């Protein structure tokens, strides 16, 4: 066991910020939070599944957006700084209100719409659209990309990497009947043309998705579709 200094950004300026916690091997940042909750029961943070599926434990560790359950604490590190996600309103301590993120997601009409002629009905393993869809499929809506993007959440009305990535997976899907409508949606102000190629999202995604590539692809497809 090693002692680790932890600093936590709190909403209440009176609340305790500095802690020391004993960590062993293996310890995730989530384990640190659960241990600290026993020192200070008023500490607010969020988690659910512990296995990188729910995407609710996203916080910033030393400034970087990560999943607390998926981020090992390195023994011998000289301390941890834990902050809430940026670009989203803070509810309390490490809990943020993800409404801007889900509003953006909703605005690309993320639901699948079967084609009127229902053809193709299914996609075989070697169907060319599968690879494109699968490259963006395992998004857990954790919001790490939103925080890592310099535009999303910064009054630019940018839909953000995750919503556009979702739009890409639908536009790539030969079974989906709303491709044209969706391409028009993402061509509007705040859509694909807002991306600055900063690639913060692709560096931050805990699921290894490359949302910037999804946006580029969507941009190629939407040329002409916006008219």
């Amino acid at each position, binding site marked *: 066991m090693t002692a680790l200094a932890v600093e936590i950004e709190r909403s209440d300026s009176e609340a305790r910020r500095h802690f020391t916690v004993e960590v062993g091997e*293996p310890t995730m940042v989530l384990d640190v939070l659960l241990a600290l909750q026993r020192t200070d029961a008023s500490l607010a943070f969020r988690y*659910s599944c512990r296995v990188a*599926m729910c995407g609710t434990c996203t916080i910033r560790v030393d400034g970087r957006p990560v999943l607390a359950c998926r981020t090992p604490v390195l023994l011998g590190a000289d301390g941890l700084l834990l902050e809430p996600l940026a670009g989203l309103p803070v509810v309390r301590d490490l809990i943020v209100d993800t409404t801007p993120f889900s509003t953006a997601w909703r605005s690309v009409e993320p*639901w699948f719409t079967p084609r009127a002629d229902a053809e193709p*009905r299914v996609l075989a393993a070697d169907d060319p659209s599968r690879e494109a869809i699968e490259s963006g499929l*395992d998004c857990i*809506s954790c919001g790490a990309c939103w925080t890592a993007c310099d535009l999303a959440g910064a009054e630019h009305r940018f839909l953000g990497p995750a919503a556009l990535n979702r739009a890409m997976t639908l536009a790539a899907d030969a079974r989906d009947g709303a491709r044209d409508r969706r391409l028009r949606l993402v061509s509007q102000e705040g859509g694909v043309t807002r991306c600055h190629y900063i690639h913060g999202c692709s560096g931050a995604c805990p699921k290894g998705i490359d949302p910037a590539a999804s946006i580029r692809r969507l941009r190629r497809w939407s040329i002409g579709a916006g008219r």
Partner: protein
Amino acid sequence: MPGADAPLPVLETDVAIIGSGGAGLMCALHAAAADPRLSITIVSKGAVGRSGCTRMVQGGFNAVLGEGDSLESHFRDTLEGGHYLNDQELAWTLVNEAPRVIQELEEQFGCLFDRTATGELDLKPFGGQSFDRTVHRADQTGLEIMSRLRDQVFRIGARELEDWRALDLLFDQHGELSGLTVLDTRSGQAAVMLARVVVVATGGSATMYRIAAPAREKTGDGVAMCYRAGLELRDMEMLQFHPTGLVAGTSALTGTVLEEGLRGAGAQLRNRLGERYMERVDPERLERSTRDVVARASYTEIVEGRGTPAGGVLLDISHLGAAEVERRFGEMAARTRLIGADLAVGPVEVSPTAHFHMGGVVIDPDCLTSVHGLLVAGEDSGGTHGANRLGGNGVAESTVFGARAGETAAAIIGGRGLYMPEPELVAASVERAYAPLRREGGQPPFALTDRLKDTMWVHCGLVRTREGLLQAREQLAELAKESSRVAVAGPRDANPAWQQAIDLESQLTVARLIVESALVREESRGAHFRADFPERDDESWLRAIVVERGRDGEPELTTRPVELTRLATGGRMLEQA
């Protein structure tokens, strides 16, 4: 507590759905499809569509879709796996509707399941099944299903109360269901929700064990709520342990499931001495045996000192080759690397982990309960899986019965109005929720939660005895007493410690019912193993244990014979009238 004594806000809705996992969201979608004018409210203790366990399903979804497979065969496997304790009508409904739901998920909601090059669904082998029938998307099937359901819920525009928990069911003076009390955990404000139909779909309660797999939210709220409201619960002693939970020291990663598909794909279990003990326990099915058998075998190895120093056994699939493991089980391999092991190249330490509650509220195939206007779907219900659930039947249950609950809700809503709840019920419910905040001098709930988990793991776990269960009963009574002194200093907004105090109440309620039911069942069947009665006894115990809250507030237990409506024990299909 400021504001707590002011008149509570009142919300109104046609259908109130508690829970936003597979059952809750399917219910919302099917209710909206049946009648688009319905106002639907989803009450979700965590993020909508991102809490609960459907999302964590790695393995897949059992449905009869392959050539040569039959509904009868799936049904037989489900009953064999459930040791004939199942409600056969529920199990039949499950088996019968699963293929339709898969088709709906894929063709209406756009789920992308793995298919072969010829376009057939890629069906993989799972434990306890006579045919490969598990539909999946790599090892993240639940994520795909839940993400697409969540997207569809955006389409229907249901009212979403995210981070709101349901407290209690409410009734009017004549006993008509009138809705529920709810608590916005972000602001800490309680409210009354009047609803014409309430659907309980909160998921199970397996988090009350020291080593456990489910998501944080699953603390038995739904079952406890229904019990308090006087509904009948069945098979409460049947709590499944998944054989392969990760062992990761004190990390919260401990107990998280490494999926069934690993064993289906040929993963081997060995003890510390290198012995493949399933050869001894079930030489025919080996690791592909049912979960109850494999879990107990591993537990026995560990308890008898043949486990690893950290208290596990070794699961090894590296013989498939690193690239193949990476392709099929990538998420899990990544998880094991976090703790310094690697599924792709060598053995990983695993232990049985509390996983799924087969028991729950008594329902019929339309999800109706004994209370008019109250429906229950998914893990909160009991009977579908009997004494043991097959891997791949869980997500099938949530989606199949969620869908049915939605349709039933739309069908019965015409006969239901809005009823004003009894004020005393509302006051008592809200008072119970706020109590930990108002108390002074007590301790936060953490230590009690730990003790509950230890008690259940040691005395009411994979191997049970009368003595152990009696001890558990005693310890639970003590915990219940101490829990009435739990205090949380505040604040009331977004306070996980306070929420955990409320969770603890639900967990203690359900834990007690598990222990009491386990004491009654003096035989061994499926997940319930009594060392003092190690044999299955069909002669006297082909019966479900039913528990309800008696007039004195104490649990009343009765037994009820299982009706063999379709399949006799031993596997003979009965003629259907």
